[in-house]
């Protein structure tokens, strides 16, 4: 009963992650298309006001979406392994490590973008490229959480290898 419940919850999480993958892919795709349209015909889409700020914001948006996409793929792999009962394997540790680095990169990129936009006093074109105080503390909390989970998995893999060496 308990195992079935865990499988059900993991399955639900996996569906949510898969939907997130699709949504993030389309967000990145739409951002690229919008960026191309603005570059090709700035007069039609921006009233001729194509600035370097907008180009940089577009690039940052694509990078942030790509990071989110990669993070969701790593989460998908992790959940898939857990759902199949493969807990302490190297692939899970790699997925967690990847998530950790992606979260750090996302935090740094959106942090730099936020500071830069405040310095030049420009409103962000898309909201997800900037960071609020809540986003920052949530991001730091998530990094710490991922680090703890990563260390637990690393120790678990070492113990599993030890157990596997006993015949």
């Amino acid at each position, binding site marked *: 009963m308990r195992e079935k419940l865990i499988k059900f919850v993991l399955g639900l999480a996996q569906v949510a992650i898969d939907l997130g993958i699709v949504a993030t892919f389309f967000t990145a795709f739409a951002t690229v298309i919008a960026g191309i349209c603005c570059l090709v015909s700035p007069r039609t889409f921006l009233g001729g006001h194509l600035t370097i700020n907008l180009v940089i914001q577009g690039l940052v948006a694509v990078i942030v979406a790509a990071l989110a996409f990669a993070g969701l793929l790593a989460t998908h792999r992790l959940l898939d392994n857990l759902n199949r009962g493969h807990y302490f394997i190297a692939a899970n540790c790699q997925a967690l490590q990847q998530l950790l680095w992606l979260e750090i990169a996302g935090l740094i990129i959106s942090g730099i973008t936020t500071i830069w936009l405040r310095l030049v006093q420009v409103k962000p074109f898309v909201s997800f490229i900037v960071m609020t105080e809540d986003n920052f503390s949530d991001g730091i909390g998530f990094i710490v959480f991922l680090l703890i989970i990563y260390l637990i998995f690393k120790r678990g893999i070492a113990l599993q290898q030890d157990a596997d060496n*006993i*015949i």
Partner: protein
Amino acid sequence: MIKVTLGLVMGQRGITSKELAKRIGITPANLSILKTGKARGIRFATLEKICQVLDCRPGDILQYVKDE
């Protein structure tokens, strides 16, 4: 140190590694690790099956040798 003399007992009983591995339910690769003394440990269940198949005692396949 613990010396594994499984190969010796297997030779005396005339049983091959492949057959023993099959009868005790482990892979030939793991049996080879066990035979060469490279395993970190042995489960009681595995030891029991080996003793059952080879009709021997644990002391026949595991020996304590004093370190020099």
